[in-house]
């Protein structure tokens, strides 16, 4: 086999003390055959080199002065890091190859130089590729392209960034006929879909390395009934950190990261260097932590998914996951962060934060052992991303709609795109696609006599290029640490606007591992100072929680059904489950257990659906609506990843009717119209589709951002043109995202005729956790803001006396 590797490369491998691996040679064969290929290999498998090797060999055998290979990574920092790693073989062997990066941070002079004198290997991101493709010289620049390497393709497929990449690659195939595509992926649940995404005709899979060793660690004393933070385990986590070299403590939310960081430092008597890393911290701070990690100057980092992907930190000795892992694939990804070498077992410790999480951790360990990877297959491509892509194409060169339709449907996410949807998206890009033809004179595209579409002006093109990208941040405010009365201060990171709205001067909150006192909001910044007293608040971020995957939920149900496997679980859990079996029953694998019982002056209904929090939230809205109509007077509900709990004034009955599939009809539509989740989704769609610009040419100079509130647009559009393409895109996004209707529909169909209603005289052991969540979780009976305002007003009136309540009657003295 080594025969296929040129002598120069063989020597280089030998000099490193390496043996070319079978999959690296197989990649070389695929390249020689001109095959597009998907390489699936676990972390540490020499995947990146395997991806580049064929291009290095080809460019050595046939030197070229034009662009040969494009490498696309989801991470900007990774592209920079790979440039460094690639440089070594290129320099060691003195290969005639230049490697350069192109990202949003690439300075203008280097961009100009890349145009004049392209590198043979260009490393970039999906966003920068889209920008390159929107330039007039794209056809010339990419004509010589021979290979596209897509790294971490499993993390991109099924996301909007993945949609953008797939569309970009479909364009490249047109510009560079004969282009070979290469996908590099971690082990995934749906290899066929990932291969289709890559456009691969061949898949090379590398067997997994040594199975990871994963253990569960419980806090001392009685196991928590509820809560997600797992702070009680801090002493044991501290002991593990002290006994090991370098530890990553993974948590599930940024709020949990802040709290765990504080909890660890409270008992860090040896002042071990322990840092904090999450997505809301200022980039520069995160880089500092990463650098300290790489340099081996830290003993532990408390991190969220911000460290899930990314460069090989090396030297990580153990991973501790606090709180439920939520999915087998996600757990494997995190576990793989430790011991980045394939032949050695990774070590990880799971720390469940409550009783249900013990079950989930156990099911996850079983899942990891059986390699039961999870995650949903990639969803169809977003129409908002398509809109962005189409305008980008027009910015580069005029096109015929039919040609472009044929081209975009070669991208796997858009393979099933109908001609009508394509046409509607195109019309939206042209003139907004409104029933009222008001914008004839301001249309963005116009058609020439041959039917080709042109962009109307250079200004439209410039504006488009400034707004390329599919990552839309929630409305955020900077957190600024100010000294004294001056406005000058240090930016610590960002908070969501709604949280900032909860703060009153003098309130304290935790952020970036500090205790901060809120002073005021000034020019889109939350100004604060260090210190303060009182009970600090912890910022939460919308959508910060991953829902439980379907596979893992099934694993938990299975575990409940097999008492023989309970032996591995702690005594307290076994007692808990046995008690449940005695007083009620255990949720079955294919049925739906619903318990009802009275408590104090209310009735409770607990449904063990195991469909994840997002789906349970939506189900909660629908079930309470129906209970209202049936006269059961529902008072509120709470949703966890495992169960839905509803309380009402009247006894719930007719349970089968409450959970009938037909609830997904009118009730759902009514609620969706008002739902804040749909508004949030619309905002993202509107920004990606270019309805709302984030940036304007010369915009930085003006005093105020030229922008318009997406909620206002949503209201108007919903009222006047409910079938507009962007509203359709919004509903499609929400159905698989925040409201997760798909999962509810699946469950309701599955349990039809299999609902088991247990009428109990008091709370069952399994229902205790959800009862304890009440008050801890934000309980929302609906999205009715007016009701919330009325309540807030009444509370203020109660607290401040009659003056507050009689606010409407007062004299303005003239």
């Amino acid at each position, binding site marked *: 086999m080594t025969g296929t590797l040129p002598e120069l490369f063989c020597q280089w491998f030998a000099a490193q003390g390496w043996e070319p691996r079978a999959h690296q040679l197989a990649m070389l064969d695929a390249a020689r055959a001109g095959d597009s290929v998907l390489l699936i290999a676990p972390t540490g498998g020499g995947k990146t080199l395997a991806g580049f090797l064929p291009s290095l060999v080809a460019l050595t055998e046939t030197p070229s002065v034009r662009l040969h290979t494009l490498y696309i990574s989801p991470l900007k920092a990774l592209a920079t890091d790979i440039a460094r790693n690639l440089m070594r073989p290129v320099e060691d062997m003195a290969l005639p190859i230049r490697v350069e990066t192109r990202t949003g941070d690439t300075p203008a002079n280097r961009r100009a130089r890349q145009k004049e004198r392209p590198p043979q290997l260009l490393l970039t991101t999906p966003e920068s590729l889209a920008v390159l493709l929107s330039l007039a010289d794209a056809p010339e620049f990419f004509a010589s392209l021979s290979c596209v390497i897509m790294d971490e393709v499993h993390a991109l497929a099924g996301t909007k960034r993945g949609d953008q990449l797939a569309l970009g690659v479909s364009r490249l195939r047109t510009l560079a006929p004969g282009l070979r595509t290469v996908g590099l992926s971690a082990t995934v649940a749906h290899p066929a879909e990932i291969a289709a995404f890559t456009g691969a005709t061949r898949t090379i899979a590398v067997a997994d390395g040594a199975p990871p060793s994963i253990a569960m660690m419980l806090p001392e004393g009685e196991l928590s009934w509820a809560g997600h933070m797992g702070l009680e385990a801090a002493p044991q986590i501290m002991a593990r950190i002290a006994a090991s070299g370098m530890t990553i403590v993974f948590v599930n939310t940024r709020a949990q990261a802040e709290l765990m*960081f*504080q909890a660890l*430092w409270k008992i*860090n008597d040896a002042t071990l*260097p322990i*840092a*904090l890393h999450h997505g809301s911290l200022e980039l*520069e701070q995160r880089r*500092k*932590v990463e650098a300290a990690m790489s340099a081996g100057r*830290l003993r532990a980092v408390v991190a969220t998914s911000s460290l899930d992907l990314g460069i090989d930190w090396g030297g990580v000795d153990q991973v501790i996951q606090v709180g439920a892992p939520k999915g087998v694939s996600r757990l494997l990804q995190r576990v793989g962060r430790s011991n980045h070498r394939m032949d050695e077992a990774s070590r990880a410790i799971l720390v469940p934060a409550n009783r249900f999480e013990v079950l989930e951790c156990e099911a996850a360990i079983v899942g990891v052992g059986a390699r039961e990877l999870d995650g949903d297959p990639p969803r169809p491509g977003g129409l908002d991303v398509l809109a962005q892509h189409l305008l980008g194409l027009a910015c580069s060169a005029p096109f015929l709609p039919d040609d472009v339709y044929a081209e975009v449907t070669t991208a796997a996410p858009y393979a099933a795109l109908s001609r009508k949807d394509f046409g509607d998206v195109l019309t939206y890009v042209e003139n*907004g696609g*409104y029933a*009222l033809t008001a*914008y004839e004179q301001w*249309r963005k595209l116009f058609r020439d006599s041959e039917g080709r579409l042109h962009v109307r002006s250079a*200004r439209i093109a410039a*504006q488009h290029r400034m707004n390329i990208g599919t990552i839309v941040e929630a409305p955020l405010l900077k957190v600024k640490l100010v000294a*004294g009365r001056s406005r000058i201060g240090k930016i610590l990171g960002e908070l969501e606007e*709604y*949280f900032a*709205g*909860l703060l009153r*001067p003098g309130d304290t909150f935790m952020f970036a*591992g*500090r*205790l901060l*006192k809120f002073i*005021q909001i000034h020019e889109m910044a939350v100004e604060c*100072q*260090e210190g303060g007293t009182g009970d600090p608040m912890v910022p939460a971020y919308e959508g910060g929680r991953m829902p439980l995957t379907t596979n893992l939920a099934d694993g938990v149900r299975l575990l409940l059904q097999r008492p023989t496997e309970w032996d591995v679980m702690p005594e307290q859990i076994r007692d808990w489950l046995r008690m449940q079996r005695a007083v009620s029953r255990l949720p079955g694998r294919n049925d739906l257990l619903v318990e009802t019982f009275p408590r104090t002056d209310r009735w409770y209904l607990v449904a063990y659906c195991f469909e994840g929090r997002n789906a349970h939230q939506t189900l909660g809205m629908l079930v309470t609506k129906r209970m209202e109509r049936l006269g059961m007077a529902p008072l509120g509900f709470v949703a966890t990843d495992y169960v839905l709990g509803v309380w009402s004034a009247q006894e719930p009955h007719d349970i089968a009717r409450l959970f009938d599939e037909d609830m997904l009809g009118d009730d759902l539509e009514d609620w969706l119209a008002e739902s804040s989740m749909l508004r949030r989704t619309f905002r993202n769609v509107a920004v990606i589709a270019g*309805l709302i*610009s984030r940036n*304007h040419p010369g915009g930085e100079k003006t005093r105020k951002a*030229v*922008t*318009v*509130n997406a909620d*206002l*647009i949503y209201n*108007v559009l919903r*009222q*006047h*043109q409910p079938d507009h393409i962007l509203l359709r895109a919004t509903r499609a996004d929400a159905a698989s995202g925040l409201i997760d209707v798909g999962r509810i529909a699946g469950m309701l169909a599955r349990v039809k005729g299999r609902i088991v209603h247990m009428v109990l005289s008091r709370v069952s052991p399994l229902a205790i956790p959800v009862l304890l969540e009440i008050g801890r979780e934000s309980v929302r009976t609906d999205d009715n803001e*007016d009701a*919330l*305002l*009325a309540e*807030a*007003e009444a509370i203020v009136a109660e607290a*401040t006396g009659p003056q*507050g309540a009689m*606010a*409407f*009657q*007062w*004299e*303005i*003295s*003239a």
Partner: protein
Amino acid sequence: MSAAPVHVAGERVMLDPAGVLVWPNAGLLAVSDLHLEKGTAFAKRGMLLPPFDTQATLDRLAQSIRRWKPKTVVALGDSFHDREGAARLPAADLARLNAITESCRFVWVLGNHDPTPPSGVGGESVAEFEAGPFVFRHEAIHGARPGEIVGHHHPKAMVPTRGTAVSRPCFVSDSRRIMMPAFGEYTGGLDVRDPAIARLFPRGGRVFLLGRERLFSFALGGPAPTEPATAKLRAYGGSAKPT
């Protein structure tokens, strides 16, 4: 929909949750910041927002006028999003607007977005409008005599509620002036805690958030921020060690 009565200088004024102010004894209705043709103003710059904003704003204005049947309507400035806004009105909307301006005395107070009288539209244009104890002007004047009714800032307030916060356009009022919410369909808002608004209400006041059926009333701050406390946090590698 129930309006809230407020007594001002011996006159009763109604704050309507629809976002208009009514002075029943004078048969006057005031509305602020209509920003008509904001959609086309954005379209000119390449953002093709749904073009239904003028129509929707006029629908609501006509509704309020039907409800209160005023003799005089005062539009408190920024009635058009820009100088050319009136000229861009689609024929149907122009006809509707003129039907309104002909049905009563219609006063356009000029604003910063529309500093010149709208062309081709009925009604009279003034820099300020005085009536009884009131002066209606677009932008509040610091230290003006009491009785000012103004727009311009698009006040909105954010109220913490269970686990979240609700933000709505609002009236702001103290013993000297009433600041009106923006009425236009695409008008965003400025938080009442922003210094630009807060400095106009130095001794605090009340905010009235617009609701579907009624207003929601809350006190508007006023107290100065507390003194900075000293804190000792030691930074480490981009994070800190709490003491």
